[in-house]
Structure formats: C-alpha cells, structure tokens
C-alpha cells in the first residue's frame, strides 16, 4: 500500500508540474478504428496493459472499438467528443491516407489534437526461397525485362505495400502487378504457394518463414538495419534512393482540449515509452520506437500527407482532397 500512496503523491506532483492540475478523474475511453484483434486494437490493449502494470495513470482505461470506413468512423467519433478530457484515440497512417481518397470522410487527423507518435513498423521485401532473385535489383531488372509479368501481393491500393511498389517502380523503371488481398494470411499464402513473386511483409510475420527456409528477404524498408536482420541491406544500401515509408501509429485526442491536458497526455506516453515493458513489447513485435511529441507529430502529418498524395496520384488513384 505504501508504495502506491507514494506513487500517487509522486504522480500528483508530476501532474502539477506538467499540467497545472489536469488529472483524469473518470475512466479513460480509448478509441480504436479496428474491430477487436485488429492491429490498432492489439496495440491499444497492450498499451493499456503496460500503463496499468506501470501505474502511469490514476484511473482505468477502456478500449472502445469504432470500426468502419478505414478510420473515418473513429475519427468522426473523436471529433464529436470535442473538449472531452477523458477520451483519447489510437491512429495509424490510414487516418491520413484514407481521407485523401474518400469524399465521405468528414474529419481528418488534422481536425484532432495530436498527442504523440509511438510506433514505426518497418517492413521487409521478401520472395519465396526458391525464387531466382538474389537481390532487389535482380527482381527489378526482371520486372523491367518482362513488364507486367511479375506479381506482388499486398493490401489495399492506398496501403504502404503499394506505396513501396510505386516508389521502386519509379526508381528502377521496372513494372509489376499489384494484387490486393484483404487478409495478411492470404498475402503470405499467395507468396508461399508461388502464385505471386514478391511481397512487402512485417518483420515479425516473416521471421519464422525465413528461419524455416521458405522465404528470402531482399531488402528492408527502413532507414537503418533492424537488429534481427543485420545482413539484409536497406533500400538505400540496395541501390534504391527512395524514402523508407513507415507504417506509423500514435495517439490523438478530441479537438478543443486545453494545452494542460495535451501536456499531461504527452507526459504519460513519454513515460510509457521509457518503461522496460514497452521496450520488450517493441522487441517482441519487431517494431521501432517512433516516439515524437505533439508538436513534432503535427509537422509529421503535413510531410506524410504531402508525400502520400503525390505517390497515390502518380499511381493513378483518384484523390479527392
């Protein structure tokens, strides 16, 4: 009991220092845009578990699923909660790219209050182990010789998979087909079954297939080599001067909350990213620490949206804003 009281006092002091008195008094509603078990949902539930374990908040947190419309339903829900201090949400890059292509989206990430960026998910470019391609340039030259013959499995046309393809096609002059599969499992099955030639895959998904000798990695979509893949070149090292498009995840709050609240939440999540449990979580999932504070995150929105708009336009996707 004693450490708990000491902790609460400590927290109150910290709270006053950072947030001039804002302290949540009711359970926090944590909004995610996927159903239970989706990427954002699992991240949110893990964050909640770590925050509770490390006692970073004086109240409980409750994950609320608002699936639909590629994040637009959750974003609108947060916008409706304007000024509400006990609600936060977990966003991904989809919240930025989705509104670019759908006129129905009434709220974009920029209408909400940025809190923190938490995670960057790097990716690998993988082929089946018995494929003839030993390097990424083997693949792109083959795609240049026989345009449209090679195939890549991936998610939707606005996904990172397709963005990486667009960038590589532009840099190499090769051309290959992008086939959308709704589920991650189907994408991997299509590659391992030999129905497509290449895919952009998350490191945690690929690791075991590589170890079992079913998959080979040609390059990593990351600015520096990941600890688990020290011998695989990054895109730049493989000779492709293209940006390593990250899959990004972070936290936002409803519009119109006071600066003190923003500071409070920033502090909670900064403390979170320094805990050992968080570092272990990142390591288990092979994510990168992508921590940015509210001001940096706001700037990141603009850069990211601008880049994505250009890439998607070039890919022939209809942009509505």
């Amino acid at each position: 009991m004693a450490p708990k009281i000491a902790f609460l006092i400590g927290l109150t002091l910290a709270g006053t220092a950072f947030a001039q008195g804002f302290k949540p008094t009711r359970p926090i509603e944590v909004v995610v845009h996927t159903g239970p078990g989706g990427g954002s949902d699992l991240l949110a539930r893990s964050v909640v578990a770590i925050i509770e374990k490390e006692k970073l908040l004086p109240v409980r947190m409750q994950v609320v699923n608002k699936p639909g419309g590629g994040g637009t339903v959750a974003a609108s829900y947060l916008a409706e909660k304007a000024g509400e201090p006990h609600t936060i949400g977990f966003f991904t890059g989809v919240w930025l790219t989705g509104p670019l292509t759908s006129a129905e989206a009434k709220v974009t990430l920029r209408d909400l209050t940025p809190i923190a960026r938490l995670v960057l998910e790097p990716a690998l470019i993988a082929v089946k182990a018995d494929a003839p391609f030993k390097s990424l340039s083997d693949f792109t030259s083959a795609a240049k010789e026989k345009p449209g013959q090679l195939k890549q499995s991936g998610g939707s046309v606005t996904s990172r998979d397709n963005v990486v393809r667009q960038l590589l096609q532009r840099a190499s002059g090769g051309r290959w087909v992008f086939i959308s599969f709704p589920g991650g499992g189907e994408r991997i099955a299509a590659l391992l079954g030999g129905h497509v030639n290449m895919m952009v895959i998350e490191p945690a998904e690929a690791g075991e297939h590589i170890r079992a000798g079913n998959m080979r990695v040609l390059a990593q979509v990351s600015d520096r080599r990941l600890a688990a893949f020290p011998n695989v070149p990054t895109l730049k090292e493989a000779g492709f001067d293209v940006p390593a498009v990250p899959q990004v995840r972070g936290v936002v709050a409803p519009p119109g909350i006071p600066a003190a609240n923003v500071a409070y939440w920033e502090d909670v999540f900064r403390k979170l990213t320094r805990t050992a449990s968080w570092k272990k979580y990142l390591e288990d999932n092979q994510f990168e620490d992508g921590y940015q504070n509210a001001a940096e995150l706001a700037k990141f929105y603009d850069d990211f949206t601008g880049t994505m708009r250009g890439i998607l336009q070039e890919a022939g996707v209809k942009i509505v804003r």
Partner: protein
Amino acid sequence: MDVLAGLMHGFALALQPANLLWCFVGCALGTIVGIMPGLGPPATIAMLLPLTFLMNPASAMIMLAGIYYGAKYGGSTTSILLNVPGESASIVTCLDGYQMAKKGRAGAALGIAAIASFVAGTVGVLGLMFIAPPLARFALAFSSPEYFALMSLGLAMVVLLAGHSIVKALLAMLVGLWISSIGTDLFSSTSRFTFGRMELLSGIDFVVVAIGVFALGEVLGNLEAIEKSQLLPVPKGLRNLLPTVQDLKDSRFAFANGSIVGFLVGVLPGGGSTIASFISYGIEKAVSKRPEQFGHGVVEGVAAPEGANNSETGGALVPLLTLGIPGSGTTAILLAALVLWGFKPGPLFISENPSLFWSLVASMYIGNLMLLVLNLPLVPLFAQVLRTPAYVLYPVIFGVSMVGVYSVSGSVFDIGLLAGFGLLGYGMRKLDFPSAPLILGLVLGGALERALRQSLMMSEGSLSILVARPISAVMLSLAVLVLLMPVFSRINAWRQKLLS
C-alpha cells in the same frame, strides 16, 4: 514425436486440474458468447487477451481455443429457437432448425446440433492431428482462381435453396450480391453505393442483414396472424425432447458430410465456416432422398451445417499452427496471442513447441466432450423458451436482435439498417421470395468478386486462368452440374411419365 506419444503427453498436460479448469472456462464462455447474437469469439478473445498475460501460455491457449470452438456449439441455439443467428456460421441452421422448432421439435434440433457439433468437432481435431502438414501444402495450392471456383460452387447452391421459383431465388441472390458490393473497393479505394454516408464505407455486416431478414422478418410476418397464433408446442418429458433414434439415423450422412466439408474448407485460408456451412447444407440436400422437405424442418438440414462449422475449427488451426498463416478473424487473434506470449508461430512452431501443440490437441478432445455434456442438459431448459407467449417472445426477439447488432459495431446507424432489412425480409416473405439466397449472395459476393479480379490480374486479363488450373476447373464443372440439377430432375420426371 510420433502421434501416439505426442497425444499421451498432451493428455497428461491437458488433464492437469488447472488446465481442465481453463478448458471448462473457455468452453462455457464460448457457449455463452455463441448464444448471444452479435458478440463473437474474435471480440471475446481480444478482450480477454490482457488477462492471459498472467497465465501459463498452454492454459491460456487451451482456454482461448475453448472459446473458439465452444461458440460454435452455442451459435445454433438462437437460430433454432428464435430464428436469430447467433453467429454468422449458424445462419444456415435457421433454415431447418427454426422450422423444426415450429413443429414442436426444438429439443430434437438443439440435441442434434450438439451431437453433430461433437462428432464433427472431434473429426476436425483428428484431422488436425494426423494430416495437418500435408494438408497445409494442399491449402497453399489454392489461390484466387481456386477461390473463385469455390465461391461459384457455393453460389450454385442457390438452386438448392430455392423454394418454388428459381427466378425468385436468383433475384434474391442478386440483391445479396449487390449489398456485398457496398463500401470501399479494395482494389481502387473507390466508394461504391455509399450515398455519401461514411458508415457505409466499410460495407454492411451480413450479421445485420441476416438478423433483419430472418428474425425481424419472421416476427413482422407473424404479427399479422397474432390473434390466431398459439404457443408453439413443446412436448413434455426429457425423452421427447431429445433426438430420436430415427433422427440419428437420418443424420448419419450429414455427420460425415459436415465433418469433411467443414474441415477441408477450414484448412483454406480464404474459406471460413459460413461458406462451409452453406456448402455442406447444399450437398446434404443434393444427395437427400427427400430434398423437397428441406427448409420445412428436416433434422439432417441442422446436422450438416452445425457439423461443418465445428469441424472448420480444427481445419482453421491447420494453417495457423503449421504455417503461421491465419485464415479468419479468430485465428488472426490467436496468432497475435501466441506472439504476445513470446512464441513464434510459423512452419517450425509444432516441432519446437510440441508440448503446447499436443496439450492443445488433447484439450480439444476433452473440450468437445465437455461441450456435449454441457449442452445436452441445457436442451430441455432452452426448449422452454418457446412456451413463452408471443406477446412476450416477439418483443424479446426485437430486443435481442438490436442488442446483438449494436454489440458488433456500437453504431446506431446499424440499428436503422437492421430495421430496414427487417422490412425487406417482411416484404420478401409476403411476395414469397426465399431469404436464404439473399444471404448466400451477400456472404459469397465479396470473396467471389475479389477472387475473380485477383485472378484476372494474375493472368493479365485472360479468363482462361479459371479453367486452365485443375482444381479450379474441377470445382467449376461441379458448379455447372449443380446449376443443371433442376434440368436433370425435370428430364427425369418427364421420362418417368413417358415410361408409365
């Protein structure tokens, strides 16, 4: 480790009191979740995930798997009693199950559902145990053209679901296909038929449509006849409530059919239990000696789909455990759970974690037995629901339907949709349109379209890819045969007339 030694080791672990307890907790939770329309195993497992960090991974896996297959047992309950499908996989069970209940055979329907679930669930585990690795390689041979052929075969089942008029059944199926196209197109990110509503961007969940058309449509239809309607007959005495020996005899083929179809479709990463249940129902009707009675309450029409959706569980674990490839929402969460507990699901998973694998397999035998013992005594209890007078029962069905739909999405918009589909179901009933083809079109439409477009991308626009690949060619031929069945039976009838 050879199979027998592995299984003995697995039973030794699974029979430890703590694991037995967790197995029971999972099965009981699964049954409850299955009975409640809307809330499904993926949501339940995701919510329990943080709790499992405190548990030993084998116990946690045993419990989560228990929720997964336990829900398949419970799902049939509301389908049979209230015409409200508890899970998407139990939609087909409504067709004959609810008709049985109306004839006073609710107990037999519930009983046969539990027995079929037990038989097929056990066959599914046997399949998982003996033929998982070769089967996983077979699953990889399936790609978009094969899925297109599989979905076409499923759609061809429409001629078997048709009532009096094939034309009306086809029209209803077309409406279902259209509803499946609502939302954001995966390939171009274009919105289709969203009418500017962001709620429609991710499409319409077919649970909303199924509950609206089946449950609300049924209630609205019965309201007209309220002054005439009497309580549904419920026979007294336990013996009269359980399936008869004749029921079991009639269901013999359905047990085998459901077990095999469910397992095979489950192994395919793009399959799913809903499709498995439709296909096994179609097969059952196609080979039946009394196809004209399907849809009017035949016991094998409950046994086949209920078996299929249970056996699918064992099948779906094959690609998950042998390849690390999840094929459905629930297996995707189980995969995430394994990662969170520090395992690395993939091709080496079983050989490196034999204890976990075998204790899971053993626990599934135990769990299926527990579920049978848990569910059979509940049958008489549940059958009493039908003694409720209509003025109580119908509002309860309305309430259960709305809570079910709201619990899936938390969206009031979906409740409006539910009301709309209830009216559609009522209209279809008045005009004598069958509702099952509508659901069939809706369930298969999205996957069918995706598979066709993926195939055409693979072949650069040439349709020949669909018939050039052997598995796909065989299934498409089967689909054509099924479509021609009404023609065959007409020729047959004509020949018999000539002969006599």
